[in-house]
């Protein structure tokens, strides 16, 4: 497929790797990389970890060096927001100005959900961007005494972990009965809860936030059980929403993301990648939208290549998802796609020691592997998942461990 130019909207992980892949594969036309943040493409995982702890300088967040970025010869438009798309006319609107496109990569990611009624209230933060993280980092450095974290997902758990490391008093509030319960199930969620409590987090589960208190600046939160918690810093990690408003009415199908086919194609010459893309992963036979780092890299690569090949040459994007999360001195990794009701079996190590691997299975199928400080075993398990190993085959493999 010969294209004259490709526009990539979204200059984070998926967008960057799409650009890099186009050049690597020999595309010589113009590549426009449009991003609404003022910063050159940077890496987000450290934002809730080392960057938040003040242990990583701004320039160490960059996804690549200035030299390599220059070598890609991009029309790099930072601080520019795409505001509209017309699929039939083959045009998009950037900062209100209409321009045509030949190939288009949609990689606009997601943004954080916020707690209603907290707009304009000081000391209330979400964490998605470098600027968000810098603001929380500075607040922690300014001697925040009491931090309340709302939501015990990845962001909440990592922020709690980093804040504990800085000597801050942390209360974490989670509406479910266990942190990560919706992903890992109750049993493994309880292990996660135990890790936080052992490190000094006051973890409140099965309770929501009724009201955020404060006049001008947050003073605390009132929970649904009537308890009031004092706080001078509130970090809200209650999930994200895909950034699709700018393509509403464009002719694309939107349903909790930009809906693509299994090759990541959303319309002729238009692909989507990363957190914003929802596609039928043939491995699972269902529409998926994955918010993990590795997915953004791989889907950015896949989607870019999709633009350069014909429909006949296109291949489906069929990864086994995986993520990692660093909390305290524990590395949590999950490969696969567990259901919270799956059977769970610890196959090596012990949950009490917080060093183990556990398998998830359902109907004789091996669905996922969870590890805490067991990277070797998780990655071997990821290979089994990719090979389509059965529950019995996976257990037999794991019986060789230890």
């Amino acid at each position, binding site marked *: 497929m010969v294209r004259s130019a490709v526009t990539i909207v979204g200059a984070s992980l998926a967008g960057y790797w799409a650009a890099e892949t186009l050049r690597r594969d020999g595309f010589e036309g113009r590549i426009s990389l449009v991003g609404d943040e003022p910063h050159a493409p940077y*890496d987000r995982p450290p934002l809730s970890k080392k960057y938040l702890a003040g242990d990583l300088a701004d320039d160490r967040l960059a996804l690549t060096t200035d030299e390599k970025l220059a070598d890609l010869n991009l029309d790099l438009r930072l601080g520019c927001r795409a505001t509209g798309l017309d699929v039939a006319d083959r045009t998009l609107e950037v900062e209100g100005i209409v321009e045509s496109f030949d190939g288009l990569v949609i990689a606009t990611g997601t943004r954080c959900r916020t707690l209603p009624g907290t707009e304009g209230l000081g000391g209330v933060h979400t964490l998605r961007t470098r600027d968000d993280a810098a603001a929380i980092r500075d607040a922690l450095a300014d001697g925040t005494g009491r931090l309340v974290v709302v939501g015990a997902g990845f962001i909440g758990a990592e922020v709690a972990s980093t804040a504990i490391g800085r000597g801050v008093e942390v209360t974490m509030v989670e509406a479910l009965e266990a942190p990560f319960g919706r992903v890992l199930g109750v049993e493994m969620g309880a292990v996660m809860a135990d890790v936080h409590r052992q490190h000094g987090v006051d973890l409140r589960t099965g309770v929501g936030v009724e009201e955020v208190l404060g006049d001008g600046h947050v003073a605390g939160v009132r929970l649904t059980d009537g308890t009031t918690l004092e706080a001078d810093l509130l970090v809200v990690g209650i999930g994200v929403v895909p950034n699709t408003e700018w393509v509403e009415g464009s002719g694309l199908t939107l349903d909790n993301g930009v809906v693509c086919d299994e090759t990541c194609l959303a319309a002729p010459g238009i692909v989507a990648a990363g957190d914003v893309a929802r596609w039928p992963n043939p491995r699972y036979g269902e529409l998926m939208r994955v918010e993990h*780092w590795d997915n953004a890299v791989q889907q950015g690569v896949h989607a870019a290549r999709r633009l350069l090949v014909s429909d006949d040459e296109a291949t489906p994007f069929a990864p086994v998802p*995986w993520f990692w999360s*660093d909390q305290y001195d524990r*590395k949590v990794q999950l490969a696969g796609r567990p259901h919270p009701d799956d059977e769970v079996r610890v196959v090596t190590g012990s949950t009490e020691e917080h060093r183990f691997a556990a398998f998830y299975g359902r109907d004789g199928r091996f669905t996922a592997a969870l590890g805490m400080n067991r*990277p*070797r075993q998780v*990655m071997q398990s*990821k*290979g089994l998942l990719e090979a389509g190993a059965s529950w019995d085959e996976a257990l037999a493999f794991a019986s060789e461990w230890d």
Partner: protein
Amino acid sequence: MRVVVDFDLCESNAICMQIAPDVFEVRDDDFLYILDENPGEDRRAVMEQAVQRCPKQAISLGD
């Protein structure tokens, strides 16, 4: 080609081991070991994937 790992950056996520088990191994001590520092040129595409997908960007390739 030469494979270089910045061990100050490496956090043993082990994705490299899954991509190229003949080159990278994370052992039970949770540390990464390089099994082959000079894989053949025919392995370049695989090695580039390891570079790309390392969450810490700790791997680089030389000539």
